């Protein structure tokens, strides 16, 4: 116990604990956000580092001001019930509510080509979206910062999309990609391949049943490659589960300390502590 009485050791331990919680919190947040998976490796590392550092500072402050001062209260049974209840609520709501958190990200190669029936009209892809969730895929890998992706007649563009499906959501719907072209797409042959599985449709205004400007594609979308940082699916899921549990425990303690601070605030005490 002497080890904990040493101020330097105590601060070092606290920093270590803060780092652990900060990593868990940033994992809990970043793994839920599709934009994180759409970044390249360097960007992902930078984002993780920045968020972790920010949380590390905040968690350190929270430990000192909201968690450690109330250490003696954690053993009272009413407080234990509150903390356990909060852990259960946080874990259960996070587990149910996180479509992307539990998913396995896959990178899919996309090739889009267009051959206009007449002249050299361009096809404009205004959106590439997940058909069910309406998630908009980033167009950056297609060489543009924002939609539309313009495909001149007779040419092709290549890019990648990151799909994120959780095995339980796959029971509810089949993965598919919707390409939304301009309102009145020019007549011609529209080719889209997902992981080298081609699909072709023809835009023809004079057809008996012209297809609109939204086309669904589902072939080949399951054949994408899992992102390299997902080394092992089960290990990856286990890491996320640990992140969820650690962050839930921390947040429960944080909420306990915060409510304790709120409920027991008295102006007189506050003035005293500042020497008034």
């Amino acid at each position, binding site marked *: 116990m002497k080890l904990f009485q040493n101020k330097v050791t105590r601060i070092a331990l606290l920093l270590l604990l803060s780092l652990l919680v900060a990593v868990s919190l940033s994992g809990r947040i970043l793994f839920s956000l599709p*934009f994180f998976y759409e970044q390249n490796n360097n960007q992902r590392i930078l984002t993780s580092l920045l968020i972790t550092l920010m949380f590390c500072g905040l968690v350190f402050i929270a430990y000192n001001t909201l968690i450690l001062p109330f250490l003696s209260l954690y053993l009272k049974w009413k407080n234990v019930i509150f903390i356990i209840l*909060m852990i259960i609520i946080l874990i259960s709501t996070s587990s149910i509510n996180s479509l992307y958190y539990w998913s396995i990200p896959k990178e899919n190669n996309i090739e889009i080509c267009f051959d206009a029936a007449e002249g050299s009209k361009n096809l404009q892809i205004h959106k590439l979206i997940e058909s069910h969730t309406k998630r908009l895929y980033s167009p950056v890998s297609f060489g543009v910062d924002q939609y539309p992706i313009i495909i001149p007649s007779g040419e092709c563009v290549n890019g990648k999309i990151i799909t994120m499906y959780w095995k339980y959501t796959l029971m509810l719907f089949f993965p598919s990609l919707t390409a939304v072209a301009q309102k009145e797409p020019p007549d011609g042959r529209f080719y889209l391949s997902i992981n080298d599985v081609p699909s072709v449709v023809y835009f023809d205004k004079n057809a008996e049943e012209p297809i609109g400007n939204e086309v669904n594609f589902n072939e080949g979308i399951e054949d994408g490659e899992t992102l390299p940082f997902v080394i092992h699916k089960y290990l990856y899921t286990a890491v996320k589960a640990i992140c969820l549990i650690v962050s839930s425990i921390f947040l429960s303690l944080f909420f306990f300390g915060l409510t304790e601070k709120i409920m027991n605030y008295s102006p007189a005490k506050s003035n005293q502590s500042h020497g008034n």
Partner: protein
Amino acid sequence: MTALKLKKFNNPPLHKILLGLILIYFVIFGVVMAYTNGQPDQSPHQYYSERFTQTWGIPEEDMSVGSRIVTGQPYLYYWLNGAIAKIYQFVFPHNPPIRVVMLWRLFSVFLSSFTVYYCYKAAKKLTNNPYGGILAAFFLSNTLMFVFVSGGNSYDNLMNLAGMAAIYHLINVYKQEDFVKHTALTGIWVIIGSLAKKQCLLLTLIIFLAWLVFVIRNFKNIELRFNKVNILIILLFVGFLILFLGLYGVNIIRYSRTTPSCNQIKPPEKCGAFDYRWEYFQRFNLNLIWFQRDDIINPVRYAFEYWLFQMAESTWGILSHNTFIPMLSIGLHTILVIWWFGCLTRYWKWKDTAVNMLLFILFSYCIYVFFWNYITEVKFSFQHYGVTGRYLSPIYGTLFTLMVYYFLKIKHVFIKRLTITLSIMIYFSGGFWMYLSRYSEIFYHWRIFK
């Protein structure tokens, strides 16, 4: 700097750190919302702001433009936008770093961050607990419609700030603080709100009535202090009062109404707006309504079957030119409001005069918006034109202040702790977390790139 001040500066109390973090949090949320389109009526706000960019005064009426009129209209928000644009263009005559339209949006975020700050101050004052203020500011910072409008170019943002600041100073009046100073500041803020948007006139009337009740009840105990600061504030108030009378007083004399209609300024053929609505129009007439009373949806049914839910959906969701209604989140927010109402009935006391004054402001404003919506519905065959929670935005802060006040009144410690914690979780998950987690599905579609 004295030793005590230096100590406070180096070792700030936790609530000040939390306030700083919440303001940073709100500014980040507001700025990302500023890069999202779909806020209400951006085109007219941009038009008026651009008109005020052309002059330091009030621009002349452009008779060639359709139903948009400048004459006799509240101008303060547009005047500020115009001033900002002129200064910005003077500093960056060529290749400005961002477009002026974006600058106006960021200015709105700036205004709303002060609304959040005043919400903190109001709740702190009412609860005598700075953490109460932190909670109320956090609730407001995570109210989706408030942040959405804060990211747009809209006079609502100045009116919301003015409303919240005026209510804060009125709380101070009720808390027996410096009467002269806080009365003058209340007056200044309600005038600022009224010079920004006509709708604030009603809030001005409600606040004036609340102030009058205080004066009548405490007439003998009021202490009038006329120090240098107070005289300066009174002079400022008189200046604003002149502007107020210069707008609304002149309008009432000249046009017999608070603001002139388009038909009073321009030829009728120029004044068509919302043409698609007129096929449903029926002039509001009490005699006619009396004979048709069995065919019209009664106000109680309208309130409980439609209006209350619509208000909830367009407060904790987004209802505008772009719409996003997260049903689960709105359901949880509604339950929280019902729970607050339960706490209110359980812990309400006649002697809490400042709290009762806020309840009076909250309910009178809600009743006004309700009947305004209902009359519009009767006129337009219940087509639901202009029924949105945005019109309640000047009193969002009042609602959150009262919510926090009554949550802190809960006697049972465990239930109080659970209420506060779940409220924080509901507001966070329905606010910034909702934006982040649904970004790729919703907000990315609305993104403004430059």
